[in-house]
């Protein structure tokens, strides 16, 4: 019976190991690949748009947008939802102007474009940003979900392990004559003795009084 349970535990642990691999490594890398592929496709669309003669390859708006996409592709491995949120929060309080630098440059770059091209380039930029948010949320969600499953299982193990230790300790303590036992025992025996002694004294006195 014990061997069967041990083998079941072993199989649970193997599944947990597999889940940890999928959650922490495989899925993470997959989402990076997927995000990069989506941005590659977007960058190629931008290239085709420029090749069609809509914008010059050396126009600041084109080069700025392409650099932004290259940055996304290059640094996607470093960006996570937590990192993104912390940086946004911290810069909001301590370095408010710097993160707006790109937006300012972008505004300067597109100012000379006609409305149609401007709109199209804004659409490219928005799609790139949406890809980034999608990547941040999806990759983070899957990772956290698997981390939670593994975390809860390990916590339960720890709680159970600790619980068992505490119960075993209490049982051991309760099974032994401890301070409370001794006190109770002493109290009862001494009290009885005292009562018995008092009764004896009373009886003796009563007898003596009767005699008298």
């Amino acid at each position, binding site marked *: 019976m014990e061997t069967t349970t*041990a083998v079941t*535990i072993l199989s*649970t642990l193997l599944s947990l190991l597999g*889940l940890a691999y999928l959650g922490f490594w495989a899925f993470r890398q997959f989402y990076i690949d997927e995000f990069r592929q989506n941005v590659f496709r977007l960058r190629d669309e931008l290239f085709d748009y420029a090749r069609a003669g809509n914008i010059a390859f050396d126009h600041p708006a084109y080069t700025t947008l392409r650099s932004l996409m290259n940055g996304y592709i290059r640094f996607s491995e470093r960006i996570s939802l*937590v990192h993104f949120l912390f940086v946004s929060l911290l810069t909001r309080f301590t370095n408010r102007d*710097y993160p707006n630098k790109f937006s300012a440059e972008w505004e300067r770059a597109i100012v000379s474009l006609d409305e149609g091209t401007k709109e199209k380039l804004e659409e490219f930029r928005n799609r790139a940003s949406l890809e980034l948010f999608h990547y941040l949320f999806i990759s983070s969600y899957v990772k956290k979900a698997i981390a939670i499953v593994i975390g809860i299982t390990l916590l339960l193990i720890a709680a*159970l392990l600790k619980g068992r230790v505490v119960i075993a300790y209490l049982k051991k303590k309760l099974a032994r004559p401890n301070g409370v036992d001794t006190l109770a025992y002493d109290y009862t025996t001494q009290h009885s003795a005292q009562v018995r002694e008092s009764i004896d004294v009373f009886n003796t006195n009563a007898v003596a009084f009767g005699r008298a």
Partner: protein
Amino acid sequence: MSKFIKSPSKQELIEELAELKAQNRYIRQSRIIYLVTTAINNLFKYGSLLGIAYCFYLIIAVLAGKTTLANIGISFLGNVRISETVAWLFGVSGVAFGYRQRRLRRKTVEHLQTRNIELEKQIDPNRTSSTLTPRGDTNPRDVLK
């Protein structure tokens, strides 16, 4: 034609310096946050692995007869329902991973192939094709029914 480089004014230099300082601060802050979040992430990752490895060690000790299940306190994992649930989770996640990988590969093939065909046709207008689908699947007309 002589080249004349205008030296920046004091005000321009001050502005540039302020911008460089802000950039430097931003990079430092971002780097610190990156290190902290990576450390937390690694704590999750390797903490889980360590926990699992420790449980493996305990269970091997049980199988070797050095201790009993009652002593190690992980008999919770020996519950068939829990074991099955975790195994299902692992199996479904594995299948989902494989499916999504395949879908991504096919999308990549489609994207690259479309551009490849276009570029090759510019060099060789008579370029022949294997007639696979854009995603690299067998042409439905070639499937024997």
